[in-house]
Each structure stands twice: as C-alpha cells, then as structure tokens.
C-alpha cells in the first residue's frame, strides 16, 4: 500500500487517551481510560446501565466534556471541538428525530447545515438504502419503531462521518425486529466501511455484531477482545458472569505439573491449563475455577465408572431441570458450588436425570479457566438479571 492510502486509512481511528468524566456532584462516570478503535471496525462498548459506556460515547461525540484526557479522531485532536465541528454522527437512543420535520427533511438536516444545496438525490438514495423511499413525506410519529430507527441511521450515515456512534440504537425494538436490525446494521457497516462504535447493555447484541467488544464496569474497561475470546477467556468474574453464565468454584492450588495446575476443591481435584489462568498461582493460594455450562457433560452416578480418565469431575444432585427444546438446563446442587448450571444438548436423553438424582459432572480440563479469588464471585450477575 502507498503512503497516501495509509494516511487515509487511519482517519477513522478513534483514540482516547486518559479520558475521564467526573460530574459536578462528585460522581465519576468514567475512570481514566485509554482506548483505540481502529478505522473500519465495528466496536461495541458493553456494560450494565451506569457503567460509563454512554458517557464515553458522548465524550467522543462532543456532547460531554471530559474532565481529563484527550480524544483523537485520526490524527486530529478534537477534545475541545463542539459537536457540530466533529466529523462524527450519532444514532441516539430513542432516535431523537425532529418531530416537526418530515422524514426527507430529517435525513437532509445534516447536509443542509453544511451548506449543501442540492440534497434531493443523496437523500433519496439514502432513503432507498434503508428501504424508506415511500415514507419520505411522512412525519416521524407516523412511522413504526423499526422505521424510525432506520431514519435515525440514515440521518447520521448520509453525512458520511468518519465514525458513527450508536447509543443503544435497538433498545426500543422488540426482540424479533432487534435481531433483524442487528443483521441490517452489520450489513450497512460492511458496505460503507465506516468505524462504528456501538453502546449496548445486551451481551448477545454486542457479540453478534461487533468485531471487538470492550466490557465496561464501574467506569472502567474490564476486558477488551473479540467476542469469542471474551467468552472463552474471561479475565474477571464480572466478565465471566456478565457474558453468558459461568460456574465459579473456589479452589486451592495443590501442585503444578508442566503447563497444568492441579487444584483442590471440596474433596476432589480439578485440572486447569496454566495459560488460561489470569490469577497468580502460588501453591496453597486460592483461585476461582470457572467453566461454562454448555461445556459440561452429565452422567448418572451409577455409571460414573464409564467416564473417561483425565476429565475434571464433580459430584452433585440435580436440584432442578427445565426443558428448553434444543437443550435441557439443569441446576446441580454440589458441595463445591451450590447452584451449578449445566446445559445439555437433547441428543440422547437419560430418563434418570430428573431432580433428586445423583450425578457426576465432568468436562475437558481445557475448557477450564482460572480467575483471581480476591474478586467478588457474584460480580456481574445482578446486572444481567436486570436486563
């Protein structure tokens, strides 16, 4: 690639360096934060309400002034630029469409403000892109939620911003429409190649749409990575519990052999690959051992002998089970973990696996991850339940 294209390539980079936000009442919404979003990526800020994700987005848009730090768009520092001078556009939560203007004028608003006279062609093309050509002369309140959402996207995208900011854009839509719009937004992003920064509290939404997800909690980025990486290798209990469900067991480091750590939990032993442990492991030290519910197999206690060697195993009693269709979700009462969750695919259902049955849970040690035991084991659980 030539230097010229290299130069244009990073104009859509967003670099936040040490930005923080403390409000007048002393509440710190965002702790000093460094973040780089590369040009053309679909980046998600994921977290529960009040975690600082929207404040971060608003600081990029210029709607909120950072208490410290700087914001860069490409090579340009924009920290003190007012929003109307920044080459970014926002899709607002609940859209903020202008109620007194029709759809055409809503979409044309940004172009007109920049002094562009002949907007007709561009607006019509944009409305075509979001499949709203017919609705051009309607007022926003005459449109459905999904249509309004598309107007909001069109109104922002028509300005071909360097970065498009999306603040919970799908929050007001029902589940089916939300799924549809997720794919739609992903399609548009691939088509236009603009950097998208998407704020959401919906972990599924973040995982399906984004290339990179930053999980935020209490004004900090807890962990940043690809959706699969975050899911498989959470670094903190918050991430482990907030993204999907994790079973966390308190264990004690027994021995280390090669790249594996052997831990004592309850009466049994568990094996954890050292590479998947984010906590310091000194012999005798405490570690939280985690495993995802779908990685676990259930075997009735009578057939415990048939379980292959080398798998992590835990005994317990089925406390509850619910049939979901493709899978059955079990809650297991185990001495090491009172509410152990297991999702079993309904391939060959064992009729004896009903509440009250004694079972052995076993899984491949490679699916085990280790976390620092100094953290709150329940962090991130409440938040997800509230969603």
């Amino acid at each position, binding site marked *: 690639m030539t230097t010229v294209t290299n130069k244009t390539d990073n104009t859509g980079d967003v670099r936040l360096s040490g930005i923080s936000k403390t409000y007048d009442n002393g509440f710190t919404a965002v702790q000093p934060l460094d973040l780089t979003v590369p040009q053309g990526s679909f980046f998600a800020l994921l977290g529960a309400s009040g975690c600082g994700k929207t404040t971060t987005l608003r600081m990029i848009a210029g*709607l909120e002034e950072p208490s410290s730090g700087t914001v860069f768009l490409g090579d340009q520092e924009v920290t003190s630029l007012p929003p109307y001078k920044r080459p970014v556009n926002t899709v*607002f939560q609940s859209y903020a469409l202008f*109620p007194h203007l029709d759809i055409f004028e809503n979409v044309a*608003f940004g172009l007109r403000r920049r002094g562009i006279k002949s907007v007709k062609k561009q607006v019509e093309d944009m409305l075509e892109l979001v499949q709203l050509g017919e609705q051009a002369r309607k007022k926003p309140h005459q449109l459905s939620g999904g249509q309004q959402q598309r107007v909001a996207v069109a*109104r*922002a995208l028509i*300005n071909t911003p360097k970065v498009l900011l999306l603040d919970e854009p799908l929050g007001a839509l029902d589940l089916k429409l939300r799924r549809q719009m997720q794919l739609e937004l992903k399609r548009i992003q691939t088509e236009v190649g603009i950097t998208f920064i998407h704020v959401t509290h919906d972990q599924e939404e973040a995982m399906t749409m984004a290339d990179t997800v930053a999980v935020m909690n209490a004004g900090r980025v807890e962990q940043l990575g690809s959706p699969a990486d975050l899911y498989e290798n959470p670094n903190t209990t918050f991430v482990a519990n907030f993204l999907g469900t994790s079973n966390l067991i308190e264990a004690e480091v027994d021995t280390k052999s090669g790249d594996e750590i052997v831990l004592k939990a309850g009466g049994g032993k568990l094996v954890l690959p050292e590479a998947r442990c984010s906590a310091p492991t000194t012999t005798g030290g405490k570690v939280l051992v985690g495993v995802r519910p779908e990685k676990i197999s259930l075997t009735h206690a009578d057939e415990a002998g048939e379980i292959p060697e080398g798998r992590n195993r835990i005994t317990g009693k089925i406390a509850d089970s619910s049939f979901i269709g493709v899978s059955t979700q079990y809650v297991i009462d185990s001495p090491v973990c009172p509410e152990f969750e297991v999702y079993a695919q309904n391939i060959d259902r064992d009729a004896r696996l009903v509440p009250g049955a004694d079972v052995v849970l076993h899984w491949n040690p490679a699916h085990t991850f280790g976390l620092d035991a100094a953290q709150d084991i329940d962090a991130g659980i409440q938040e997800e339940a509230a969603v």
Partner: protein
Amino acid sequence: MSTLTEAPPLAPVPEKKPPRKRGRLVPYWLLLPGILWLVVFFALPMVYQASTSVQTGSLEEGYKVTWHFATYWDALSEYWPQFLRSLLYAGAATILCLVLGYPLAYLIAFRAGRWRNLIMILVIAPFFTSFLIRTLAWKTILADSGPVVGALNTLHVLDVTSWLGWTSGDRVLATPLAVVCGLTYNFLPFMILPLYTSLERIDVRLHEAAGDLYARPITTFRRVTFPLSMPGVVSGTLLTFIPAAGDYVNADLLGSTDTRMVGNVIQTQFLRILDYPTAAALSFILMAAILAMVTVYIRKSGTEDLV
C-alpha cells in the same frame, strides 16, 4: 350507532341492560355542569347583548328591539380611531411580551436547574396582588418626578420617544408608551407560561441531535427549538393580544384622553352615557375583529400538527 344495532340480540338478557344504559349516560351527566355554566354565563349574556345592540330607545322610554343595524355602522365610523389604537397597542404589547418572555421562558425551561421553581413562582407572584393595585403602582413608577423618568431624561431617551410620538415632552405618564408598558407588564405572565410549557416539553436530545448534525447553537434554535415552541408562541400571543385589545384599565390609569382604547369607549358608553346599544355593538365589533384576526393567525402559523 353500534349500540343500536346490537340492542335486539341483547334484549333476552334483561339483567345486563340497565347498567349499560346508565353507563352510556354518565358522560352527559358529567358534561352537564360545564354546559350549564356556559349557557348561563356565556350564551345567555351573548344573546342578551346581541339583542341590545339592535335596540333603539332611551332610558326614560325604555329600549325596544327594532333591528336597528345602523348602530354598528355609526359606532364603527365614530370610534374607528379607538379600535385602531386598541389593536396597535395590543399588538405592540404582545410583541414586547414575546421579546421579553421568550428568553425568560427559555432560561426557565433549559438553564434554570434547581432555580426553576423559584423563578416560576416569581413569574406568578404578581397575581397575588390585584390587577388594579399593580397598575396603580406603575403610576408611581412612571411619575414625572420619579427615578425612571429622571434616568430616561438624562439619557435623552425621552427625546427620541417624543420624536416618535410615544411620549410627550418630559412625561411618560399619560402617553402611549405608558399604556403599552402597562399592558406588557400585566400580560407578560400569560405569555411566559404557555411558552414555558411548550419549551419544557422539547426533548433536550433534539438539541444534541441538531448539534451532532452540524447545526450551530443559533441554527439549532432557528431550525429546531423555535419551530417546536410554536404552539406556545401561538397560545401565548393569543392570551396576551386578546385581553390586551379589550383592556381599559391600563389606558384609564396610565393614559390620557389621547390614548383611549375601545375598552374605554365601551366602558363609558355602558356606565356613563348609558347608551347600551352602542356599547353592545362596539363589543360585538371588537369580538368579530379579534375572531377574524385569530382565525387567520392560527391558519397561517400552521401549528395544527404540533399541538
């Protein structure tokens, strides 16, 4: 209509019918007090005034309905300067109210924060004193030897206003300016309250969205805030203009014989000269004129789909 067509199949179930009937009448019973009030205090006086305006006669011999419509023409041709003056003063006061009230309403709606309620109370506070007392107070404020006139004189403002014909010589009292000031002062809250209500309803995210879409603050105001506050502007100007056009207290207390408004004429005709037909005719002409103007105004401002 649907209840009528449904009635026959319901007939065999008599125990269901009575509550339905009662339920249907409830809205009318609830309307009754309001309708009675309107009939007694609005419709009947209107009919009575209308009939008065076409009567002829005298106090001694009594008045009779003679369908004497010439009273209207006579009243209009004799008192058209007062009509014109009323509309002019009311119009000036309305514009002044809008110019003074809009920034204040904007401030209360968007910038006042925790002071919002206090400022609102201050806006309404004058209502705790009688209209008459407050207008009399302006007599003292604008008195010839008072500080206001003194200051305006020193600054040579009065020279300009005299030249414009708004004041005369070194006086403010008993001039058009004093009457318009009094009207503005007295009707200002009626402008601020509706303006505040419609500004307060505007979602601040619309301001952010406009800023995000490259509109400077002044453009945001012109393109988003002001158009969205039009319902408040329309109702505020109506609530100011209509009573101001019919007002006679301000012209009476702060004005002179040269600033008489149509309200003063009607008052004099009714209470001093006792020429009831002319007074009634003048009232109707004023009402018709205002109605016509308001209709055109509302049509032009096109706020139907904003309200």
